[in-house]
């Protein structure tokens, strides 16, 4: 059950576009910084396959200059 957080850096002047493009993705939460050119992206998927798909989608976004993973938690389901 991968949950990952990233710092996403937009290309110059494209922060708003990046917010919109990221928000359109399923399983992806976006928290833009209020005063700097950086966004937090959290992906929350159910499987490795879903995770790979979203990773591909992220990498295809043109307003995204750089995506740096901050933490990757793989949460086992426990009873």
């Amino acid at each position: 059950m991968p949950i990952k957080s990233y710092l996403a850096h937009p290309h110059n002047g494209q922060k708003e576009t990046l917010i919109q493009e990221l928000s359109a993705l399923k399983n992806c939460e976006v928290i833009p910084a209020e005063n700097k050119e950086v966004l937090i992206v959290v992906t929350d998927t159910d499987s490795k396959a879903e995770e790979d798909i979203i990773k591909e989608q992220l990498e295809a976004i043109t307003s995204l200059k750089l995506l740096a993973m901050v933490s990757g938690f793989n949460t086992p389901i426990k009873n």
Partner: protein
Amino acid sequence: MYTSVTNRRSFIKKMAIMSAMTAAATMFPGVMFASEQEQKLPKGGNLDWKKAPCRFCGVGCGVLVGIEEGKAVAVKGDPKSSVNKGLCCVKGYHSVMAMYGKDRLTKALVKKNGKYVETSMKEALDLIASKMKETIKDHGKDSVSIYGSGQWTIPDGYVASKLFKGCIGTNNVEANARLCMASAVTGFLTSFGIDEPMGCYEDIDHADVFVLWGNNMAEMHPVLFSRMLDQRLKRGVKIIDFATRTTRTSMAADKSILFLPQTDLAVANAICYEIIKNGWVNKSFVEKHCNIKKGITNMGYGLEDKYKFTDKPEEISFEQYKEFLEDYSPEKVEKISGISAKDIKYMASYYGDPNKKIMSLWCMGPNQHTRGTWINNLIYNIHLLTGKISTPGNSPFSLTGQPSACGTVREVGTLTHKLPHGVVMNKKHRELAAKIWDVPVENIDPKPTYHTVEMFRALDRGDIKFMWIQVTNPMVTMPKLKRYRDATKKEGRFIVVSDIYPTPTTDIADVILPSAMWVEREGMYGNSERRTQYFEQMVNPPGEAMSDTWQLIEVAKRMGFEKQFYYKEETHIEEIYNEYRRHHEGKKHAMAPLEVLKSQPGAQWPYVDGKSTQWRFNAKYDPACSNGEEFHFYGKKDGKAIIWQRPYEPAPEEPDTEYPYWLCTGRVIEHWHTGSMTRRIPVLHKAMPHGYVELNPNDAKRMQIKTGDNVRLTTRRGEMILPAAVNERGVPAPMQVFVPFFDENMLINDLTLDAFCPISKQPDYKKCAVKAEKA
């Protein structure tokens, strides 16, 4: 315990968000996210949070480590820690991941017929003990040695010193802090007679101006740098970056001033010249609290084996000192330093302004310097002349690089000349150590043996036959590396390496011992502001991995020192710490009791009457002051600090027609030193995958080199090819190049020079001559 999956997921998600927010705060100081998000920070979950100091730099942030099912899975800044107030940098956040690399060493390995064979720890420890005994019998006690680190915990360093200096009777004890902090130590000892900063991190909240002397704090001390930027937002403080290369720090500073390598000596003197010329000297402070001295000049650079130097201090008058400074008017210094007289005057005016509180901060720039002790002295001169010292916000602050360079190497004294209290040369100090160690005083040799570079030279010559290396990677970090790598391979040498991963240093070992890392064992570190911090064992080490402390104890017992190494396995850390504290009894250096360290994020020595001391030498804060005055520099017998007359002298190897560039080496934010841990953390490795050479854009253009192109670097020691970085993270000044040293596949130290400061014996990794060309 049952935890709802939904709760758990949302908890983990909040953790992930918080990690990202804090990482962003390190990279974009002052960054803000919607407050509503911040309120969602995790409060529950089933993680067990335990406090520890971060192990990835000398800032010594307090962190909380989240433990789940016997595994450390998360890290957050400890909001209770006055060091970082809940912040962390990228390395801190990912620190737990460094424990779980796939190739952790879990078994002892012994080299047999050129191949490593797995053995039990017992067998490996037996072999080490018998090999040491045999070497001592055949070649004398000074043929065995130990080389440790500023990442040693306090108990590691303490038992190493007790075994080698107290029991075996050799002063062959050194640590890699010689390569990073030795000039800071000799700077303190010569100027104040006692080691470590007088101030503390809280100075940042009081100072109006910060001058960073060759110190890329944005990358090397990121949390402290964030605190400074935060003060700028709140109070409009000024940050001046005084350096040889444009870095992230320069970009964030209010002013960046670039000087030519080695000329910081001249600039510091020029600042003193201006202070005197403009009548900014705090006369009553200088008269009451300072002496002025000069020492020997033209000391050489230690390039030859068995080089020796002893300074001969001589008292001089203020008038003589003033006359000496005539050679350092800003107009004269402008010509050698490459910075304008106007900029020198600009810096001097802040130091001179009685209404401005000022902090000078430095680390490797002034320390890794063939005149390292001198430049440390010169920065203190500026603060002493103006009386801007030992008061909140007025603070010359020498920062450390490693988590326990202060706590272990400097305080425990794991250097050839040191004892936990004092030095081997002093009879009283030897007597105290011998009493606490329960050894005959004659065991402690009154003569220091080898400092680090000389210790490896002795290994090369064959004077040393046995070396035990713990928590450090000298086969990446020694300057002029090839000579010392070849030395280890010579016939008749026996090398033991204790580490957590394979490294170029384990490659040269005869025995490799798997070590327990950080919170896999119990211990303490001491950070840059005299803060000792405790951590408990939180998880089990993998396989047969064992703490360095216990490895040493096991060997000591096998060598026949059961009486001195009486510690019980369950309580040995407590027993060792309590024994260690006895060396530092008294108001000048008392250490906090263990219960205190367990209950709070550290305590600062001197810890007197249940209180940490934040500002030493100031009677208002420091109970050790006893002269009835406002200040008391009690490290010196007469209670006075020393203003040192130290000239500018050139570097041993300057660029010439054959090798026309300066080569400077250093670190990057993502990696811890040689990268043996952080390169196994995928996020950090991906962010900074390999070494490179930074070039000035004009030089690159002239040579038609773009980022990624191969560049050949050649020095008198060797050559190597690295990819170019042009206008990337850092930008060197024209005719200078910079190479980070974290990449073991691009060993830049094969090219560096093993010249060192004659007083501190610390090598200069920042300056040698190199040829750069498109490969």
